[in-house]
C-alpha cells in the first residue's frame, strides 16, 4: 500500500510539473471576423490586433494559444455557421468576435446556448448581450452600446454643432443602424431639436437619389448617417453632389481607412462618435500603437484597439480561471473591473457591457482628428 501511494505521488508530481515546465497546455480560441465583403477593413484590423494580443500573452501566460480564425463576410448566416463549427468541431474554449452587431447577435445566441464564453470588441447593439428580457451570461463586450452612442451623437449635434433640425438616413435591415437612428431621434427631439426626415433604405441600395432629393427639400442643419463606412461614403457623395451643405454626423461604423478613399472630399468635415482616438496619451495605448504600427505600417483604428482589449480581457481571465473551460472562464470574466486597455479603463456592467467614455472625431483630408471626449 505504501509503495502504491509513493508511486502515485511521484506520478502526480511528474504530471503536474511536466505540464508546467516541459510544454504548456494548448488552449483553442476562435476568432470570428469579416475578412472579406463590405466591411473587410474592420476584419483585417481585428485580426491584426488579435494576433498581437495573443503573442503578448504567450510570452508570460499559462497556456499556449491555438488561434482558429473564421471569416463571417459580415453575413449573419455565415457567422452562425462559423460559430457552430468552432464550437462543435474545433471545440474552442472561447470566442472573440464577431465584429458587427448583425453577425454578433445570432452568434451570441449560439455561444450562450453552448456555454462558450464570447467577447466581442465592437458589436454595439444591446441585443448582443441581452435579448428577450434575458441576459446572455456567457457574452461580454469591450465597447459601449448603441443607446449611449446615439445619445452622445445627439447631444453633440445639439450643443456643439448647434443643430436645430436633423435628417436621419438609416439601413432598415441592420440592427446597428436602426438602433443608433432611433436613439439619436429620441435624444434629439427631447433636446428640442426637430427631426426633418427619418428615412430608411436597404442593405444593397446604391441609389439614394429619391431620399436625398427629399432631404434637400427640408434643408436640415445636420444629416445623421449611422451606418458602416461603405454606405456612408456612398451616401455622402450623393448628398454633396445634390448640393446639400448640411453637416454630416455618424457613429463608430465610420472608422475605416476606406471611408476617405471612397467618400473623398464629400466626407471631409463630417463628425463621428468613436471608442478611442489614436491621439490618446496613455502608456498601454502608446505601446499598442507602437507595436501595431511597427508590424502593419498603419495607426490602428478603433476596431483594432477594441479587438486588442477584448482579447486582452479574455486572455487575462483565461489565465486566472481554474481550468481553461467555459464556466471557469465565465466566472472570472464577469466581475472584470478597471481593466487597463488601449481604449481606456474597462469594466463590465451587470449585462456584460463595457462602461466607458466616448470620443468625437472629425474627418479631415489627412485622417481623423480628435475633437472631444464624452463621459457616460
Amino acid at each position, binding site marked *: 500500500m505504501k509503495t502504491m501511494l509513493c508511486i502515485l505521488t511521484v506520478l502526480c508530481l511528474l504530471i503536474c510539473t511536466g505540464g508546467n515546465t516541459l510544454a504548456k497546455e494548448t488552449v483553442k480560441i476562435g476568432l470570428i471576423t469579416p475578412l472579406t465583403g463590405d466591411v473587410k477593413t474592420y476584419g483585417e484590423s481585428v485580426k491584426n490586433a488579435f494576433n498581437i494580443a495573443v503573442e503578448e500573452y504567450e510570452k508570460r501566460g499559462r497556456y499556449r494559444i491555438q488561434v482558429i480564425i473564421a471569416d463571417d463576410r459580415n453575413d449573419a448566416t455565415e457567422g452562425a455557421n462559423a460559430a457552430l463549427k468552432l464550437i462543435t468541431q474545433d471545440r474552442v474554449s472561447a470566442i472573440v468576435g464577431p465584429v458587427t452587431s448583425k453577425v454578433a447577435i445570432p452568434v451570441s445566441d449560439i455561444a450562450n446556448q453552448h456555454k462558450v464564453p464570447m467577447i466581442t470588441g465592437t458589436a454595439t447593439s444591446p441585443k448582443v448581450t441581452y435579448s428577450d428580457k434575458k441576459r446572455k451570461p456567457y457574452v461580454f463586450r469591450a465597447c459601449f452600446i448603441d443607446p449611449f452612442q446615439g445619445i452622445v451623437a445627439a447631444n453633440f449635434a445639439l450643443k456643439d454643432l448647434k443643430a436645430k433640425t436633423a435628417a436621419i438616413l438609416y439601413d*432598415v435591415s441592420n440592427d446597428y443602424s436602426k438602433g443608433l437612428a432611433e436613439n439619436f431621434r429620441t435624444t434629439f427631439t427631447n433636446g428640442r431639436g426637430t427631426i426633418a426626415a427619418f428615412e430608411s433604405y436597404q442593405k444593397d441600395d*446604391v441609389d439614394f437619389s*429619391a431620399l436625398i432629393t427629399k432631404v434637400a427639400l427640408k434643408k436640415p442643419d445636420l444629416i445623421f448617417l449611422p451606418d458602416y463606412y461603405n454606405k456612408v461614403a*456612398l451616401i455622402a457623395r450623393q448628398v454633396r453632389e445634390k448640393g446639400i451643405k448640411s453637416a454630416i454626423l455618424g457613429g463608430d461604423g465610420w472608422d475605416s481607412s476606406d471611408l476617405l478613399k*471612397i467618400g473623398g472630399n464629400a466626407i471631409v468635415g463630417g463628425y463621428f462618435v468613436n471608442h478611442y482616438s489614436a491621439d490618446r496619451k496613455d502608456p498601454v495605448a502608446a505601446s499598442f500603437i507602437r507595436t501595431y504600427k511597427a508590424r502593419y505600417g498603419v495607426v490602428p483604428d478603433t476596431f483594432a484597439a477594441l479587438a486588442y482589449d477584448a482579447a486582452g480581457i479574455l486572455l487575462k481571465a483565461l489565465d486566472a480561471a481554474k481550468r481553461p473551460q467555459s464556466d471557469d472562464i465565465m466566472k472570472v470574466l464577469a466581475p472584470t473591473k478597471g481593466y487597463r486597455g488601449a481604449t481606456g479603463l474597462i469594466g463590465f456592467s451587470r449585462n456584460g457591457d463595457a462602461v466607458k467614455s466616448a470620443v468625437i472625431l472629425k474627418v479631415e483630408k489627412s485622417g481623423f482628428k480628435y475633437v472631444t471626449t464624452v463621459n457616460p
Partner: protein
Amino acid sequence: MEQASYILSQVINGLQLGAVYALIALGYTMVYGILRLINFAHGDIFMLGAFIAYFLLSRFGMPIYLVFLATMAVTALAGYLMEKIAYKPLRNAPKISLLITAVGVSLFLEYFCSLKAVFTPDYIAFPRPFEVETYNFSLGGLEFSFTNIQVLIFAITFSALVLLYLLIYRTKQGKAMRAVSYDRETAALMGINIDNTVSLTFMVGAALAGMGGILYAMAYPQINVFMGIMPGIKSFIAAVLGGIGIIHGAVIGGLIVGTSEVIVSAFLSSTYRDGVIFIILLIVLLVKPSGIFGKRIDKV
C-alpha cells in the same frame, strides 16, 4: 410650384435609373425573342462590365471612350462564350433545362468572380473618369437640375437604342435575327446560319449589359460581385412589363420601373419600393402577360 419642381427632380432621378435598366432589359428581351430563354446570367454580365471598366480605368488609366469600347468587346466575348458553353448544347432540350442552366451560370459567375484571385468579394470604389457637374435650369418657375452623368446616361441609352434599331431593321444580320425569332426551323431551311445569329444576339445583348454596368458604376460609384442581382431582376421585370421580345417595350418598361422605384421611395417609403415593383410584375402577368406592347409581331 415647389412641389412640382420636387416631383420633376424625382422623375429625373427615376429616369436615370430607368435608362440603365433599359440597357439591361434590351439584352433579356433580345435573347428571349430568339431562344425563348430568360437568361438569368444577364445581370452578372452587367457586373462583369462594371469590373472590367474598373480595371481599365484604375490600372491602365484608359480614356473613357476606349473603356466603353474595350468593356463592350470583353462582355460581348463573355456573352458569346456563355452561349457556346452553357446554352448551345441544350438547344433542343426542354425549356426548363435551359432555364435551370441559366440560374447555374448566374451563380457560377457570381461566386467565381468573388474568389480572392478574381475580383474578390469586396466592395470597391469605382473611379469616376470625370467629376460630377450639376447644371441648374429654371423654366417658368419650375426648377430642376441635371448632372453630366445623367446627360451621358440618357445620350448613350438612346443612341444605343437607335443603333440597335438600325441593326435589326436595316441590316442583313438583323433580318436573319428577325427570321430566326419567327421560326427557327424555317429560317434554317432558308439558309440562315442559326448558330451565328444566336451568337450575334448574345454578343449584342452582353455588350449592352456591359455598357449598362459602366454607366451604373459611374452613377453609383461602388461595385461588388453581387451588384448585378437586383438590377438584373428589375430589368427582367422591365422587359416583361414592356412585353418580352419587343425592343422598344424593354426601353419603356425600364423607364417605368426606374421611375416607379424612385417615386415610391420619395412619396411612400423605400421599404415598399421593391414590393411595389414586384406587384407590378404580378399585375402584368395576371392582366396582360404579353406586356404593354405585347401581341405585336416586330419581335427580334
